[in-house]
């Protein structure tokens, strides 16, 4: 035993020394800010506290309690869920469809379409928002013009609280689907051709090939793409910020937008930190359960 323990201790020390610098960086730039932000969320830190720290009150979980009883928080959460529940499947579905189309043997000018469909991802939100605001304009926008030619009355896309979130979703999906499309396209190209060949020999239709070869092979990539898209879409902020400023009637206020307003517009940093931690808890719970679900499926 004792002969064994010494080299083990030495190895342990070496491991700590090697991991040390990275751990210090993580502690300083990740762990400490997170702990500090959590502590902040237990206070009512605001402009008055900036003036004089004696104006700071330790409020415990009151910020969380106040948030959970504020209708605006639930509105923001509802808006965010609406965005996620509609936006994520739509975005991934569109990415998959575009990737399949680009991967198809029949597709022409693949390089051109790949670039064109990916282009929105590398544009800046602020820039394209200006264009989309014109497209969506009630009286002069193309979208209403096209709808008008088939007899549909103009819709106040960004001004009507029922249409504002769908408009934001369409804008965000258009802006983001190219990214997942590239990842899925790469995964498609990695599926060995022999599988399809064998399936065709067995007489499988195109739909059966998609269902039994393509989708299962894409499984792990789809899971990763879903988790990334889910957590990305939960952090909805830039689109409503530039398109609607949260309006009309706060129908596009997202959780992150609420945090921004509380923290950086009104300097209620305690409340803003509490919002951030609530969002963190929701995201953690969702992604963990998604992973669990996927692992359960994989086992069966």
């Amino acid at each position, binding site marked *: 035993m004792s002969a064994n323990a010494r080299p083990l201790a030495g190895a342990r020390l070496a491991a700590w020394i090697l991991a040390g610098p990275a751990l210090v960086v993580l502690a300083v730039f990740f762990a400490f800010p997170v702990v500090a932000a959590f502590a902040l969320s237990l206070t009512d830190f605001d402009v*008055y506290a900036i003036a004089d720290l004696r104006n700071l*009150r330790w409020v415990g979980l009151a910020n969380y309690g106040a948030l959970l009883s504020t209708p605006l928080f639930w509105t923001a959460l509802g808006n965010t869920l609406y965005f996620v529940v509609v936006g994520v499947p739509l975005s991934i579905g569109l990415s998959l469809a575009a990737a399949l189309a680009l991967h198809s043997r029949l597709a022409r000018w693949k390089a051109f379409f790949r670039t064109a469909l990916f282009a929105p991802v590398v544009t800046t939100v602020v820039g394209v928002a200006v264009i989309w605001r014109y497209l969506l304009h009630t009286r*002069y926008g193309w979208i209403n013009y096209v709808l008008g030619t088939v007899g549909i009355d103009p819709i106040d896309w960004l*001004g009507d609280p029922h249409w504002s979130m769908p408009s934001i979703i369409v804008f965000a999906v258009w802006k983001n689907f190219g990214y997942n499309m590239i990842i899925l396209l790469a995964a498609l190209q990695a599926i060995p051709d022999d599988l399809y060949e064998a399936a065709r020999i067995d007489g499988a239709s195109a739909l059966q090939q998609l269902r039994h070869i393509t989708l299962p092979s894409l499984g792990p990539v789809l899971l990763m793409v879903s988790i990334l898209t889910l957590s990305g879409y939960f952090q909805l902020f830039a689109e409503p910020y530039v398109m609607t400023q949260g*309006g009309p*009637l706060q129908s596009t206020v997202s959780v992150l937008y609420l945090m921004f307003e509380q923290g950086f*517009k*009104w300097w209620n940093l305690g409340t803003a930190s509490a919002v951030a931690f609530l969002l963190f808890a929701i995201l953690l719970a969702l992604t963990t359960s998604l992973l669990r679900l996927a692992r359960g499926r994989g086992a069966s």
Partner: protein
Amino acid sequence: MVAQLLPEFERQHPGVHVRVQQLPWTAAHEKLLTAFVGDSTPDIAQLGNTWIPEFAELGAIAPLDARVAASPAVPREDYFPGIWESNFVDGTQFGVPWYVDTRVLFYRADLVRRAGCPDPPRTWARWEQCLAGVKRVAGAGNYAILLPLNEFAPLTALALQQDDPILADGGRRGNFRSPGFRRALSFYVSLFDQGLAPTATDTQISNVWDEFGKGYFSYYVSGPWNIGEFRRRLPPSLQQDWRTAPLPGPTGPGTSVAGGSSLVVFRASRHPEAAWQLVEYLSRIDVQERFRQLTGDLPPRRSAWDAPVLAADREAHAFREQLERVRPMPRVPEWEHIADEIQIVSSLAVHGRLSVEEAAAELDRRVDAMLEKRRWMLARRRSAP
């Protein structure tokens, strides 16, 4: 722009060199707050007068009462009273008005004449008649007035016209269920309910000048910057057809908001004397006139309005008259947040989600919750020795 005014100041005050740092308006508040936390505030700055209570509360800016009292360069009686008053927090003066901002009525003279309203309305009742008249002659799809739903100022002006203050109890609680605010809100909401104003925000109307030119609306409640914009952006054929007028009030000429920008001296300044000399210099009538020529911003001193160019400016005249009837907005650090809530809750009422009574109660609820910290601080301060 200010930089162009400074060489003369430096010539008159040898040994004083002024470094100017320009900040975009939208970033200035955050930047100055950060500077205060980081102990690197400037000596002197231009501050929106609604920010003064916050910076005074922080202890970032210095009281100026003694300096103003001793200075012949800043004669209190020459300033518009409402604007002057907006620089006081609990009886202490923290700023000297630099330029003014208020809201008046912009209107299409040709269209309102056709609607039977050649003269600008002075009362709400007459205003409503004129709006209904315009709506009749404006044609289908057009409106009478634009009150952008993302702006708090028009409704705030209507609320300031009432006898009831917007906040009660020394800025400790909302006073939105008072008869005054409810009267202002119902009038405001009724303009939308009658189809006289479109339920639109600024961002939906991509180009207000273009729409004004097309007759989409004939009245518009807006501020001094739009004098220049209207001159620049409306076609020459319409230049004779737009005018400005002071806001109508419930029963006679109405009050408007006392906005604008003030010069403040920071407490941490290492050159308070030189900073004050600069305030005095910038308050001179000839300097204010030059600043107006450079920027179009309107001066806060009555005698600066006697300058030939400004006195002959027909569209500026309504501002001159309105400035005699302006009231400061509530002077609490939370005001900008309160204004935001006023704008949000009033749009809920405009969209019919809340009745006027419910909106007033909701505003009181939200604002009272927001002012909880202020109540606690004031109570503690009073009990402290």
